[in-house]
């Protein structure tokens, strides 16, 4: 499609009307072609194209390659409209039946509707996973084709930008965003409008706007989904933000580990530029703004604002002390405003629907919605958008469907390596910025990893400390050396070499690292340790005092054995054991030789009779 020049808001409206008029009402197959690619969405798409072509039905049915529908545990996922049927676990072999039964006959294919909760309804709006969500920011993700500007424009893209640039002053936009109560969705939760105002008022001949898409928190993937699923929403948010602060140049700093996100945001920015939505005199307002896309090179610390700026300047990505804040002295010494992807994705909504609409969602402390990346030991993994103030129970049980395998919920790790573990006693606490902070965690970017009774909390703390230790840039001593000592202590505890007093040492070191570190990475690094000590002290004590890992994870402290009464001598464990540590004949209970056993747990996973025990 050739794109028209959009020089004024009217041109956008004409373009939108043209697209909607051209659009014949066809049945649509909305197939996720982002995250679902990992489980074969491309093959499914190919099969649809081929079979529809062979049947001469290409004109009747439209295949739209979209972003994430949210229910990633059912990948590959597709939605059929107007029937509004959501299918999961689709393979190329299902395509014929879908064409016959659904596209031609209007009936659902029952087996593709079944989700892990045991629901069999075809209508996603009737699934608890979707019923308990409030999709606002993610509304068009999974609906539009992220590689087609016309698809985004048909869904209303750039209308908010048109209004902001031609009908509002920068100060009015800042007031609107400030009064909406929008806080940063990347970690610290600073008021977005406030941040913009600092940058607007700072003096400098050139100002910069940076979109922080360096989503490095392990367990967070909402920014990836937004960039992949609806990149024009991010660009529109950037145009409005840049106009508000007076920036004519922008960067999107995106993780190289997200190739599809890089591809889609690159295509989107080229399209926006081609029709004048980026470049000189946008919407005839006299305001000019353009974007450059830069890829990260694999350094977690570059999510920190000053480190990100150093990286953009072609340096080692090391943070610098603040003040001066980037709003005053940022990229190349000029005033720079940095916002996270999800924050910017909220901006067009606020301009379109108004601050009153926005601030009615959520709690007084946290307005609007938050996207959580739900993963770990939970039935429905995926992307979940709820109002701030939703409870953990709503997210993990109502939406997530609870814990698989009939096991029990132990804790949720929220906010990645800067966050903490929240135990089951707080399942009914409304989650917003302050309430989570009081528990010792942070909402952070919104990674939410569910843990069950077979997750060892000391091992989790060790895992996070090991991560931040490796990612520590080494510039300041508390973070570089302090986290190393913490890792050593935790490794000792996990391997049975813990000593009385280690918990106190960990707490003391945590205090030093928190207070003394230069940037957010070190200042928040002890959170996973402090929260696990706070809520699971007994587990630490069991490791140190009794040489026991209650969750059965820490290898030096556990032993596998076979319960003779439960064993049916099927031989599955013998086959799976990679070190030949299990012996047994037909009809006699098998036995594990602890001297040979490497405690991999394979036998336990494979046993159909729960006859393998760990203690």
């Amino acid at each position, binding site marked *: 499609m050739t794109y028209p020049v959009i020089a004024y808001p009217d041109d956008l409206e004409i373009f939108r009307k043209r697209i909607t008029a051209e659009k014949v009402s066809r049945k649509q197959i909305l197939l996720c072609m982002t*995250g679902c*690619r*990992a*489980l074969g969405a491309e093959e499914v798409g190919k099969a649809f194209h081929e079979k529809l072509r062979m049947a001469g039905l290409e004109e009747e049915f439209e295949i739209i390659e979209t972003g994430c529908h949210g229910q*990633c*545990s059912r*990948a590959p996922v597709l939605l059929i409209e107007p029937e509004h049927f959501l299918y999961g676990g689709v393979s190329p072999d299902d395509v014929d039946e879908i064409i016959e039964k659904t596209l031609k006959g209007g009936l659902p294919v029952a087996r593709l509707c079944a989700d892990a909760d045991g629901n069999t309804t075809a209508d996603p709006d009737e699934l608890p996973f979707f019923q308990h969500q409030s999709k606002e920011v993610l509304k068009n993700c999974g609906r539009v084709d992220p590689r087609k500007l016309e698809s985004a424009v048909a869904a209303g893209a750039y209308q908010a930008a048109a209004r902001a640039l031609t009908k509002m002053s920068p100060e009015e936009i800042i007031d609107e965003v400030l009064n909406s109560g929008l806080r940063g969705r990347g970690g610290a939760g600073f008021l977005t409008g406030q941040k913009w105002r600092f940058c607007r008022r700072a003096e400098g001949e050139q100002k910069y706007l940076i979109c922080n898409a360096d*989503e*490095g*928190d*392990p*367990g*967070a*993937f909402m920014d*990836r989904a937004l960039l992949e699923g609806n990149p024009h929403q991010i660009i529109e948010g950037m145009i409005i933000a840049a106009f508000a602060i007076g920036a004519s140049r922008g960067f999107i700093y995106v*993780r*190289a*580990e*997200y190739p599809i996100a890089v591809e889609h945001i690159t295509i989107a920015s080229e399209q926006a530029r081609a029709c004048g939505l980026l470049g000189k005199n946008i919407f005839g307002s006299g305001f000019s703004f353009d974007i450059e896309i*830069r*890829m*990260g*090179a*694999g*350094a*977690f610390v570059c999510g920190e604002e000053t480190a990100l700026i150093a*990286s*953009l*300047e*072609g*340096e*080692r*990505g*090391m943070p610098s002390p603040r003040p001066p804040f980037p709003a005053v002295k940022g990229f*190349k010494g000029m005033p720079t405003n940095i916002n996270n992807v999800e924050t910017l994705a909220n901006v067009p909504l606020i301009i379109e629907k108004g601050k009153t609409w926005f601030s009615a969602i959520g709690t007084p402390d946290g307005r609007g919605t938050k996207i959580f*990346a739900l*993963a*770990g*030991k939970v039935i429905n*993994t*995926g992307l979940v958008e709820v109002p701030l103030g939703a409870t953990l129970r709503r997210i993990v049980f109502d939406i997530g469907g609870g814990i698989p395998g009939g096991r029990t919920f132990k804790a949720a*790790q929220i906010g*990645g390596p800067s966050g903490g573990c929240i135990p089951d006693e707080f399942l009914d606490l409304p989650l917003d910025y302050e309430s989570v902070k009081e528990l010792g965690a942070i909402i952070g970017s919104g*990674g939410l*990893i569910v*843990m069950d009774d077979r*997750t060892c909390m000391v091992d*989790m703390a060790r*895992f*996070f400390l090991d*991560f931040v230790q490796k*990612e520590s*840039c080494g510039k300041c001593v508390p973070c570089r050396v302090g986290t190393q000592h913490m890792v050593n202590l935790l490794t000792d505890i996990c391997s049975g070499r813990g000593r009385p007093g280690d918990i106190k040492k960990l707490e003391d070191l945590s205090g030093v690292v928190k207070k003394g570190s230069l940037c957010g990475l070190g200042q928040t690094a002890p959170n996973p340790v402090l929260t696990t000590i706070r809520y699971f002290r007994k587990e630490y004590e069991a490791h140190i005092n009794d040489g026991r890992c209650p969750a059965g994870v820490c290898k030096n402290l556990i032993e596998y054995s076979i319960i003779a009464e439960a064993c049916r001598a099927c031989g599955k464990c013998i086959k*799976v054991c*990679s070190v030949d540590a299990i012996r047994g004949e037909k009809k006699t209970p098998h036995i594990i030789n602890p001297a040979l056993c490497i405690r*991999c*747990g*394979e036998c336990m*996973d494979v046993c159909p009779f729960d006859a393998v025990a760990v203690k």
Partner: protein
Amino acid sequence: MPKTQSPAIDLGPAEKILSEMKNTEPDSLIPILQKLQEAYGYLPVPVLKWVSGQTGIPTSRMHGVITFYTQFHTKPHGRHTVRICEGTACHVKGSPRISERISKELEIEPGATTKDMRFTFEIVACMGTCFLAPVMMVDEDYYGQLKPDKIKSILEKYE
């Protein structure tokens, strides 16, 4: 000036990259290195020296940047790259066991390349595909919901 310092390295791709870049100032060092690595598969020192001469960016600064970011490497990689995700969701779902099995099958530790240059084995922090946990990638292919006993047959597919 001789066109190459080492007859084994062709400077053609580097010349093309620099001529196509709008900006070769020091702030573009990371994009330059990314493009060079994409073209050569790694960052050969003779190429870096040549680029330094062209752009005025000192090799010492290049070294500082290359060693800071995990993406860059100055030695050739294997024909295939095995990446195991060590993110939180993967860890909870047993990625250390997968990682141990890969090390055992390839007889190398993470970060190393097999002697026959068939595989390079890397650990990455998070691939953002937590719903596939535990997950690994071989080149561009994802393998999710892994079990240790699946590793051998997956690796056998790559020559």
